[in-house]
């Protein structure tokens, strides 16, 4: 079943978190929202089941990929 998007314009955000300061941040999921406020509210609502000491979100379009799986290092 297709899911209808309700917002005219949305951004995808990746959600990063860690449980202890000595751990690296890892990607725990993503959210789709029209702005940073709602993205923060959604990230917190969706991924707060663990005792994270830190959580942050990054708009996916702000991420610059150097290379991906199957591509040689450039």
């Amino acid at each position, binding site marked *: 079943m297709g899911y209808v998007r309700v917002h005219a314009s949305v951004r995808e955000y990746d959600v990063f978190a860690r449980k202890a300061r000595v751990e690296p941040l890892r990607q725990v999921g993503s959210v789709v*929202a029209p702005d940073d*406020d709602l993205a923060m509210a959604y990230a917190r609502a969706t991924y707060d089941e663990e005792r994270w000491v830190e959580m942050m979100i990054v708009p996916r379009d702000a991420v610059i990929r150097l290379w991906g799986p199957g591509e040689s290092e450039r």
Partner: protein
Amino acid sequence: MSLYSLVKSLADNKQLLGMRYAEWCTAAPSLEADIAAAAMGLDDIGHSRVLYGSLRELGAPDTAADEGDYASVPYLDAPWTDWSQFVAANAVLDSAFSLMIEALANGNVEVLRSRLKKMLQEERYHAMHGHSWMREVHAGDAVARAWREALEWFGPEDQEVDELLRQGKLAYGVRDLQRLLTERAEGRPPDAAIDWSKWDPVRRRTAPGAIDQATRDMLQGLAEKRYMPAGSG
């Protein structure tokens, strides 16, 4: 009015707000909003439990009726039928309740100072959710109603809430609450003045009526019992 009755009303409103949020956990416009509705509902029901749990240390209710009945805003009497009502409650009423929590958390009553601060961290996300959805949804009528009922719930100037401010139990008086709500919530205060002669100081509202029977049943767990196997209820 005693501090007890104010906190009891805050707890009643929070419990009902949490229930109304939760009712939308499969009906919001997107999956993300469904999850947020469920999470905010859990937050507010949790807050109400902490607030009810603090009452024991705050003295006695003003009247016997205060104990049994819900001292809640009319906005929460019946389930919402439109997402715009959710958004307006989220953007205005939830912020009004958070301001009162802030006033109590920064007052001189130790039990409230120590227990209420965590709620404000969680409420930050409710406010962001409300702000953002207000940009998406035309919730004019619902926002006007939410504003009016929030101001009624703060109560009249120079009476009970302002007396609690003078005693140091609250960090804000009525004017502070109104000003801060204007700064933080969406929309603006209604033009029409509130008829305080109709205001019920126990239930903190001017409109008659109360939560509907379905809501009452739900709160008492009767609605769940209907789905239990025969003989186990």
